[in-house]
């Protein structure tokens, strides 16, 4: 029955579809299978939430590896008892990974790891340069998105965390330590009334900007870069204390550990990591000081040549996790005018 998960002939991997999974398939899974004889059954999901719902309703061992987002999700999975314990000795390539990406994960799981960081990016402010100058964007920062002048031309991600984060910035508070939550909700309401559309996917974000449905929104660095590459005149700016995030490859409890660890190590091989990064326009988690990343990677937005990621702020997992239940529910109402 559930023995299926333990069979060493195959491991299950779930991730973002499209270009990402193509790159994974070609540069990681196929050679890995050739090398080990272990098949990688790959699946896709549309978002971390949806995936979690599926994992929660599955049997242990059914899902193995997943390309998850952010430290926050790591904490969530860990909190739900879905984490495993990696034997780092089996993943020598872990040494080349940016330390500041690994540390937050360790902190959550008592010094052990259940995942390896894989890539990172920012959620900054994207604006149409035809209508908003770089200067204006820099001057107004997060408050661009509560500017009455752009009513009906503003967008935003429909995710509660990002909304609250920006609400905190707009009410001049520290997102990881909000004092006046009501003020944040007010900012969110204000933004809501000006917004044309809360987008729910990268595709939507890109088309809203590309088709000039909106002039300003917060956006994912990689997606904005993709737009710029296509010749759209879109500016991107990380305000101070810009919102950074990382993506990791998480190993779920009940997985065949040895096989998974070998796959992880394989995926951290520079060629693999770089190919994936170039496909999705997010820099790999490899430390540029330790690994040669080629020509394109250094031009990606959010790329940190120092390999320290000092300039970015991340969701404090403990803080956000604590408020998750209340805030996510509350946002659901505020979003709808309540």
């Amino acid at each position: 029955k559930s023995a299926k998960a333990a069979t060493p002939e195959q491991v299950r991997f779930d991730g973002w579809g499209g270009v990402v999974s193509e790159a994974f398939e070609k540069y990681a899974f196929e050679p890995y299978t050739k090398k080990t004889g272990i098949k990688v059954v790959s699946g896709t999901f549309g978002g971390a939430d949806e995936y979690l719902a599926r994992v929660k309703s599955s049997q242990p061992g059914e899902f193995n590896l997943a390309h998850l987002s952010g430290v926050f999700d790591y904490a969530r999975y860990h909190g739900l008892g879905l984490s495993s314990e990696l034997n780092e000795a089996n993943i020598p390539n872990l040494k080349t990974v940016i330390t500041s990406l690994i540390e937050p994960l360790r902190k959550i799981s008592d010094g052990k790891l259940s995942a390896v960081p894989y890539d990172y990016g920012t959620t900054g402010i994207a604006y149409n340069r035809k209508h908003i100058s770089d200067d204006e964007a820099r001057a107004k920062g997060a408050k661009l998105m509560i500017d009455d002048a752009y009513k009906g031309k503003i967008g935003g991600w429909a995710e509660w965390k990002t909304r609250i984060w920006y609400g905190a910035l707009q009410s001049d508070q520290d997102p990881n330590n909000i004092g006046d939550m009501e003020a944040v909700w007010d900012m969110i309401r204000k933004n809501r009334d000006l917004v044309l559309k809360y987008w729910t996917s990268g595709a939507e974000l890109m088309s809203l900007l590309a088709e000039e449905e909106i002039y300003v929104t917060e956006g994912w660095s990689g997606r904005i870069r993709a737009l710029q590459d296509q010749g759209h005149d879109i500016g991107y700016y990380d305000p101070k204390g810009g919102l950074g995030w990382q993506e990791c490859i998480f190993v779920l409890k009940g997985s065949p550990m040895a096989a998974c660890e070998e796959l992880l190590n394989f995926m951290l091989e520079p060629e693999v990591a770089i190919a994936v990064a170039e496909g999705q326009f997010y820099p790999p988690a490899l430390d540029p000081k330790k690994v040669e990343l080629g020509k394109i990677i250094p031009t990606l937005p959010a790329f940190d040549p120092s390999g320290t990621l000092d300039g970015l702020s991340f969701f404090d997992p403990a803080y956000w996790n604590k408020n998750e239940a209340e805030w996510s529910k509350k946002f659901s109402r505020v979003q709808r005018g309540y």
Partner: protein
Amino acid sequence: MAAGVARAQKHAPWILLSPSLVTIGFLLIIPMMFIVVYSFWLRTATGADQVGFYLDNWQEVLSDRFYRDILLQTLKIAFFTTIICAVVGYIPAYFVANTKMRSKTFLLIMLMLPFWISYIIRTMSWINILGTSGAINGLLLWVGIIDSPLNMLYNQTTVILGLVHYLLPFMILNVYVSLEGIDKNLTEAAESLGCNGFQAFREVTLPLSFPGLAAGSLLCFVLASGTYITPLILGGPRDAMFANLVFEAIITQLNWPLGSALSLVLLVLLGALVVIYTRYLGVDQIAKSFR
């Protein structure tokens, strides 16, 4: 009824029904029991579910104005969608049923064409039509009727538009199928008694096509009430429907107990509608006049 036969084979209907009943029983009834049970549990701050018998979810769902408002909004949207589908869908159904063109089947297959394109893509493509740089604005700007693009997207109207587009084929096919079965002599009889074409339609064709119209309307209403993708893609921030709340509760907030209670509310409400349908518009009622 062929009751001599029917009595000899009292079990016949049960044989006919058993595959459906088994399927629904195992894949719907029993699973829904879990949902009923879940609706009495509690979602804790840590994310794990508290097993027990709590009425909190039910109390919240039934007393909170938020849910009631969204529910009403949902029913309103579903209602308008259904009405529009009925009115707009009847005409092509009538045309296809009565055309002497040999292309009848072709026209029907064409009806299903949009389904080849994924629902999400199809819905999103309205943005290419109605958007600021979409086809309509492009045309109007080019012709010079307007000089700045119109804002047509992301409101309740576009949600209804998207739903109508999605549901229209269901209505058309249902109505067509009913229309196809009407004896032409009857409209002729009506006309011979002094009806003009339209009156004969109203007196004979329309009531006799009612089974299809009712079935189509039920489908449209129920499906419209249960969608979440259309409002997500074509609605503005406030244009949520009840299924969005269910989806969010279950997927985003991972609050299955609450989601269960919410979905049961919707189930009961739509179920009442179905009961009304089976009682007053359903097969038995309609069959009366045909037997």
